[in-house]
């Protein structure tokens, strides 16, 4: 394998214990396809300079905050776990839960029986769908982008799923993957590969939780490959306990007439860095990136988006809404990138921030890199507390101040939350906002 010729850096190129030894452990007993993929990801990972505070992307989010060397991999038993149904599961067709007890896959509505929809762990997919997995694992990222943590996940993932919808699959309920880590000082490295053939429509949710006061790290990697006219929604809910650390990378490649919705909702955990990127790479491809974050009590949430237009006549729309209070700190950075000759691109990037008290801080750095003519790209960011005229209006109608403020904060986030395809998640987010808002 040819090695990439990258400039040397003074910082070491391996992070913490994520080295050759751990790679060997991860590869042990695995299908050759997965071994090869891990090795390739490791090569790339070890040659990308370590992120540090001098990188623009990390100026507001010191990678040292993740204390990566302190964590050893979360132990997930290989034996299948018993599925324990939760009331909210009625919203989904397939529920997967990953915890210290192992992995449970429940096909609630028999949607997996005819084989048109495949939902299975990556090692099983390596045996049963090797050609497709060979083409898709590691293929979601925008060509030329270097993502250290996505490659780290690619080399060391310790649980992974393959979702594959054959042409025409139209799923009503959706697929939920629930991750719960209660092992202190461990790192969960989940991988998700989604392949949507043409004319498929389905939604996926991933939810991350941990108990309070248990130090955990998660480094997540996901890739979604959408063929012509596919319609896929992905919701990622970072709802960790108060000591959870999270790094997530989502990448979607969207072909002709297809539409992806990527939602990233960060409400829990201590420090979080989410990156969501899409490559709308054929005409009429469309991407919607929706995000919400609410940082309070010293939480530090960083989100980055990348709307990559590598074809003419492609569309993307991004709306990230955040609130900060009680020493919370949020960062939004985003780029719209339109390549040469990509005329007819239509792309928006909007980040609105509610700064609820003076102890909190929100930074916003939207940006455009445009190498084409005849297109429409715009970006904007707003900051502010609750609008006093709106508050006065509601109160003049008899609504008490506390309720009026609650309505305004909910309304602010509902522009994104209302678009999430799962009602139980909407309810959950409303409850979280209510709790954080403290009324």
């Amino acid at each position, binding site marked *: 394998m040819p090695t990439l010729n990258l400039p040397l850096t003074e910082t070491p190129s391996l992070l913490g214990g994520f080295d050759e030894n751990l790679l060997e452990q991860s590869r042990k007993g695995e299908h050759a396809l997965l071994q090869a993929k891990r090795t390739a990801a490791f090569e790339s990972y070890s040659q990308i300079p370590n992120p540090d505070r001098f990188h623009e992307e990390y100026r507001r989010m010191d990678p040292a905050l993740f204390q990566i060397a302190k964590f050893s991999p979360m132990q997930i038993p290989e034996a299948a776990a018993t599925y324990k149904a939760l009331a909210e599961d009625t919203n989904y067709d397939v529920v997967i839960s990953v915890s210290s007890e192992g992995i449970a896959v429940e096909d609630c509505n028999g949607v997996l029986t005819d084989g048109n929809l495949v939902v299975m762990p990556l090692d099983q997919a390596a045996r049963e769908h090797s050609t497709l997995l060979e083409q898709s694992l590691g293929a979601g990222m925008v060509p030329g982008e270097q993502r250290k943590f996505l490659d780290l996940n690619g080399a060391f993932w310790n649980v992974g799923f393959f979702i594959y919808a054959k042409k025409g699959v139209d799923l009503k309920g959706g697929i939920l993957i629930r991750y719960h880590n209660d092992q202190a000082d461990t790192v969960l490295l989940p991988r998700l590969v989604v392949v949507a053939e043409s004319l498929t429509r389905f939604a996926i949710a991933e939810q991350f939780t941990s108990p309070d006061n248990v130090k955990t790290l998660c480094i997540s990697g996901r890739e979604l490959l959408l063929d012509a006219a596919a319609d896929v929604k992905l919701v990622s809910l970072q709802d960790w306990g108060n000591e959870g650390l999270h790094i997530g990378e989502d990448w979607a490649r969207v072909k002709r007439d297809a539409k992806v919705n990527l939602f990233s909702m960060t409400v829990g955990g201590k420090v979080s860095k989410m990156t969501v990127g899409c490559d709308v790479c054929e005409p009429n491809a469309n991407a919607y990136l929706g995000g919400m974050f609410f940082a309070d009590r010293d939480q530090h949430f960083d989100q980055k988006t990348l709307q990559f237009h590598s074809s003419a006549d492609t569309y993307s729309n991004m709306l990230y809404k955040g609130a900060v209070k009680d020493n919370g700190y949020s960062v939004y950075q985003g780029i719209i990138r339109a390549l040469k000759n990509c005329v007819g691109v239509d792309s928006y990037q909007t980040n609105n921030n509610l700064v609820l008290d003076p102890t909190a801080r929100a930074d916003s750095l939207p940006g455009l890199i445009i190498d084409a003519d005849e297109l429409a790209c715009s970006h904007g960011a707003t900051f502010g507390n609750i*609008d*006093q*005229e*709106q508050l*006065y*209006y*509601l*109160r*003049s*109608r*008899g*609504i*008490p*101040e506390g*309720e*009026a403020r609650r*309505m*305004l904060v*909910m*309304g*602010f*986030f*509902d*522009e994104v939350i*209302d678009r999430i395809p799962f009602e139980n998640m909407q309810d959950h987010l409303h409850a979280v906002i209510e709790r954080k808002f403290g009324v």
Partner: protein
Amino acid sequence: MSYLQIKNLHARTGDIEILKGVNLEINKGEVHALMGPNGSGKSTLSSVIMGHPDYEVTEGDILLNGESILEMDPDERALAGLFLCFQYPVAIPGVSISNFMKKAVDARHPEGKAPAGPFLKEMRENMEYLDMDKAFANRGLNEGFSGGEKKRMEILQMMMFKPSIAIMDETDSGLDIDALQVVAKGVNKMRGPDLGLLVITHYERILTYINPQFLHILMEGKIVMSGGPELVKTLEEKGYDWVREQIAVTA
């Protein structure tokens, strides 16, 4: 004793005194019009009555049903029976009309929660009466509304909240004749022994549809002239300069 009494009201915003001793009494069942040139303090008066936080009362009092409301918050004033039809209602994206209306009706309900069935029925009927599309209820409050839609929304609220005293702050401004007629239709439906109405306007044209029993003219922060319906006609013919001459004569 009138239901709403405004006594020697002085109010300012920042360092600027805008109201300089307003006296006005409105009873239930009465319709009063308040007119005055630009900058005379008409909108300030409505804001001060409703309790806008940007205005400070420096002297005088406002009594509703015999009790001073100056120490009350805007929501308490609303629950006491006051309603203000805003000249420029603010848009609140993300807060749907149905959610907003339910919360406001709940606030008025003795148990804090109005039963959903009757509430929805009443809202649907009132919306029909005001020629509003049902689908409106799911839209964000005033979000992307035309001038006429915003004013219908204000009238809809007045019909739902059933105030004792309603103040209409230049509700006619920016409306075409169709919208003006619908607004007047709603107001006239509300007229009756339980409602006292103060119609603030810059032009007399809304008064063609809503016939007031009393007209007051506000100039430089004071009510300088009051009269019956005949004053509307006189004012229309002779204008504010005539009013200024009259004051000069009496002074």
